């Protein structure tokens, strides 16, 4: 099949529509353009493809191992022996980091939301009068009066896990102490039973409950997450709102 040489240039050229030649039909033609109805059959191509894929995916791919190395981000002592794991770790925990409070987020979008809700004083003011807590699902335009309401929406409409957290410190296992400290530890607890001042509920996509860190840091694989890293593990707060608690929360 010989294609005209100019065709390749056309593909690379600008988008555009041809100026149509004049259409003039004779009733004697009796023909209408033949536009095929939607076809639903024909998975054969798909099956062939899947067969090919399966012969490749059947076994675990050999992952290249390298000598053990540590994440170089300050304060992080995660150790790796495969580049893939490190890449994943870096992107999950170090990429989208809040410059105010050093919390890390899985995406730029969530980081932006965090900054808005936690470090923007105007947000707090507006939140008193209108629904400011935006649904975290991109494409969903719902807004809520409180972070708790938003969480409720995320769980019931978008079926987020009920125990997800957005920006809250991880639950500590210590007992709650009475008095003014209750508020602080309730926040630290991240429990959703005690609402706190205008803070965002945590969207943490890490659900594994890790045991609290012992004081002596060891270099190991896997689970240790240093305290400066979110998700929620005791990160310092750069801005603490002194606003009164919202009645609805």
């Amino acid at each position, binding site marked *: 099949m010989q294609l005209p040489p100019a065709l390749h240039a056309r593909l690379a050229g600008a988008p555009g529509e041809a100026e149509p030649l004049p259409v003039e039909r004779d009733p004697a033609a009796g023909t209408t353009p033949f536009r095929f109805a*939607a*076809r639903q059959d024909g998975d054969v191509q798909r099956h062939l493809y899947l067969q090919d894929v399966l012969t490749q995916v059947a076994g675990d791919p050999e992952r290249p191992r390298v000598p053990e190395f540590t994440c170089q981000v300050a304060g992080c002592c995660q150790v790796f022996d495969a580049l893939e794991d490190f890449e994943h770790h870096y992107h999950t925990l170090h990429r989208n980091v809040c410059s105010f409070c050093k919390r890390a987020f899985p995406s730029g979008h969530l980081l932006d939301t965090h900054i808005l809700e936690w470090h923007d004083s105007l947000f707090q003011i507006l939140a008193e009068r209108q629904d400011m807590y935006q649904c975290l699902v991109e494409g969903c335009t719902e807004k809520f009066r409180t972070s708790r309401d938003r969480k409720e929406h995320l769980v019931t409409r978008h079926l987020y896990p009920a125990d997800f957290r957005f920006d809250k410190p991880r639950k500590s296992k210590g007992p709650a102490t009475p008095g003014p400290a209750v508020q602080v530890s309730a926040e630290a607890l991240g429990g959703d039973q005690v609402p706190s001042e205008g803070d965002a509920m945590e969207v943490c996509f890490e659900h*594994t409950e890790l045991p609290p860190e012992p004081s002596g840091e060891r270099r190991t694989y896997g689970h240790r997450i240093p305290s400066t890293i979110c998700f929620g593990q005791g990160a310092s707060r750069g801005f603490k709102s002194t606003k009164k608690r919202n009645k609805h929360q």
Partner: protein
Amino acid sequence: MWSRRQRRLRPLSCGVEELRCRRREREAALRKARREQQLVSKRLLRDEDPEKAEGYVAVILGEAEIQQFLRLAQRGTEEKEREKALVSLRRGLQHPETQQAFIRLEGSIRTLVGLLTSNQALLQLEAARCLHELSHSEQSTVAEACLPATSYLLTYLSGHSSDFISPHLTVLEALGYALSQLLQAKEAPEKIIPSVLGSPLPQHMLQLLQPGPKLNLGVAVEFAWCLHYIICSQVNNALLITHGALSTLGLLLLDLAGAVQRTEDAGLELVGEELACPVLRCLSNLLTEAAVEAVGEQMQLRDERVVAALFILLQFFLQKQPSLLPEGLWLLNNLTANSPSFCTSLLSLDLIEPLLQLLSVSNVVSVLVLTVVCNIAEKGPAYCQRLWPGPLLPSLLDTLAFSDTEVVGQSLELLQLLFLYQPGAVQAFLQQSGLQALQRHEEVAQLQDRVRALQQTAQHG
């Protein structure tokens, strides 16, 4: 993007010709199996499971055991231990009873989702495989239980779209595959597809099909098939069109053609093929929607580069994967049917002759080629003039010699249009012994009337 896919190709241990031969054999076997209704895509995959092939039998796990595995996966201290727990779970999930037990167990899907979104790459992968298994289920309850997880996961994964890395991509691909399985369920059009369409999923899917440096072939293929199943269900294609499906898929087609142009290695014959098929299908099927005419300019497909891309792909298919020729021609037909502009493009880009060169490939292809030319000719004299003289008449006389009734029938249609709109066509036809060519079909039931009508026109003007 394309080079990543290369790594996943199996090495060419045999010649390209042998590959093609094997492929043809497999295709034939699949068609046969399909005819015999033995073919369900999910079952086919199960049978391919190497673990099964080695005589492994899926163990039925009870709720307690499932819970234990999940807990271990979530909270185990050793990474290997956690991974193993998920592998055990996955194997159990190959059995339908385990699947039922799994979804009965409260919080199980949620835990699985948590593992899918954990920061441990290997756990993510194993969890994704568990989701795969669940998506194989033929029981609608299981499929429905999985569906909400999909939405959440896509949200999570879409949030990373600017910096996808390997484990994410694999999970995303697994997700796409699982979703494509769900969408093929019997109840999909009633239960699953409406909720998919009501969620942000379609927009996410289209985003994953955007061409560009970040397009991942494996991921795109899975979600292109998802889109295909949704479109075929015809639940709400208008919605997809308003989300810009036509322009996204059109641009992707351009991208595919561009990649094909750059590729020289014969071993890369698989490049783009897997993606080309669902993309062509989706476009073709969407173009049949009445909704297309109703949407705004930007949403429609008007770019003549699409035609250029399609022909570059057709040429590629002719050499590497002839079974995709009908797919491409189908799209060409739907593009030209109601668009004087696209018809004009075919003429001005000198594509009629290359198109006619496809006439000898097969009967199916020939019918499609002739139908496309009919679409052009029926637009009137201005179009027929540009089709004439050229190779059209000789080609038509050739096709009139075919024994296939459909091919001949479509040739007669085209002849009629040429006789009507192109002065001199009758004359030329007669000079080339056209009447003899017609005579051959005088007694064929489906062709009789048209043959006679043409004979009359030719003889009496």
